[in-house]
């Protein structure tokens, strides 16, 4: 059994976390705060979660459900 080729076009989504982090002037600020936490900190913590979601999405879109070839 052979794998269908991954749809590599979706890999481009993986650049989003890089753009988010490199755009420092956007998030190097105090306001708006969240529960008293400056933007600089909660923005980056939020991107930890978003990057995980993006990778999951890319995995699904580019590689199907990923349940093939007996690789668990």
């Amino acid at each position, binding site marked *: 059994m*052979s794998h269908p080729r991954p749809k590599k076009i979706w890999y481009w989504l993986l*650049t989003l976390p890089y753009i988010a982090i490199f755009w420092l002037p956007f998030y190097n600020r105090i306001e708006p705060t969240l529960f008293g*936490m400056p933007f600089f900190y909660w923005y*980056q913590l939020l991107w930890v979660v978003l990057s995980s979601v993006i990778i999951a999405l890319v995995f699904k879109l580019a590689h199907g459900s990923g349940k093939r070839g*007996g690789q668990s």
Partner: protein
Amino acid sequence: MNVTATIVFVALFGLVTVLGFFASRWKKADLDSLQEWGLAGRRFGTLITWFLLGGDLYTAYTFIAVPALIFGVGAYGFFGVPYTILVYPFAFLVFPRLWAVAHRHGFITPADFVRARYGSRWLALAIAITGIVATMPYIALQLVGIEVVIGALGLPTTGFLGELPLIVAFAILAAYTYTSGLRAPAMIAVVKDMLIYITIIAAIIVIPAQLGGYAKIFAAAAPDNLLLKSPTADSAGGYSSFLTASIGSALALFLYPHAMTAMFSASGTNALRRNTVWLPAYSLVLGFIALLGFMAIAAGVKNLPEYSAQFQQYGTNFAVPALFLHSFPSWFAGIAFAAIGIGALVPAAIMSIAAANLYTRNVHREFINPNVNSKQETQLAKTVSLVVKLGALAFILLLPMQYAIQLQLLGGVWMIQTLPAIFPGLYTRWFDHRGLLLGWVAGIVSGTGMVASTGFKSSTYPLEIFGYTLPGYAAVYALLLNFAVSAAITVLVRLLGLKPAPDATVAQDYEDPATDDASSLRPDISNVPAVD
């Protein structure tokens, strides 16, 4: 001495010791084979790989040093978070290719791959030596992590009596790594990670409540330290150092031998891809741990007389242990310290295994005795893993702690210099091995020079371009030079028409294995041709 905390700490330490020895019977196989001892037969599924990589990458020292940096300098110390954001999209793309080619050819170390891909023993040696040298101080720093929590328990930390707990902890670690190989840290990682998660969830609920909420915590920090310094007309301020530190650390992370070892031990490419989805859970924990630095400032632990002796001995590294002692009941502080202490054992074990694999495969077998059989190879690796740990222990006991920290700083700068030979090699054979070797030399020399110019105090180098200062991570600047030299020499080699080296891999080796059919594997690199 804090009796309750010490009892909890010792009990949990005892538990993982039993687990470490018991691990040799897990997924039972012939532990006389290096594939089994050193990579656990490449059979770890998604979940165990997640625990193993999590325990491996987010080390005890990370949990001590990251908040310590925030405690000391503020916002810059938060670079550990974007660093772990940047690493996984990259890993998602690169890892499955590296795993696939390693699986097909039976590579145990990254230098094995370089050896086969570029047909050069000397380039592989350069990669292996870099890995071994960069790993040693990293193991030593794990000991610093243990030392700090032992100090926090109130045990004596000077004289022979002070060194005893550390020696005992390390003897135990050495013994079960020797018998069980990679299975031991994998099993212990499960316990360690649960303790870490329990500790940190408690910390982010209990401590901010005690301190009156996050607004109060951040208000206690020096206002200048809350954000990065904005660029000015003649300097990029805190921006370039923050970004280069993030990207440089992200690129270096998975070049470290211990990261490669954990990665190779996964059972398949999709197990790795799923891990890049789930490993950010640890990054979130790391982010909250980083914030403990601000909490320690707000709690004012530095000025409490009961901790002044330890602050004097361990510096800002004592910020988090002091915060735990101050905020938690003794028994829970014991759990938190056990989490950190055990958190040191997991990566230390994997690091010593990885360094041993490198020595055995890419130094001994290649240059000293090519005729070792599988059993002798494994025996040698076990012995070397002991020697590596003894070296790290001696380092910590005999030299000031500062040396280990400085060497670790240099280790990161050196490690990243192996990047051009490894990651681009997964996509293209364009680079010539002579170019890569000279590029590596240029990177090591210039990187070391930049760190030396700061008196080995910092790896941030103020690069000046046309009068504009770009303070940045020396590793990244040295890497750019490394790439430039590698490319220039490669072009020169082509122009001169020098003989290219053989490549033992084919394009298909890098794709996901189509089947698990063992006949498609070519697990032997001993007769791969080399040009040097």
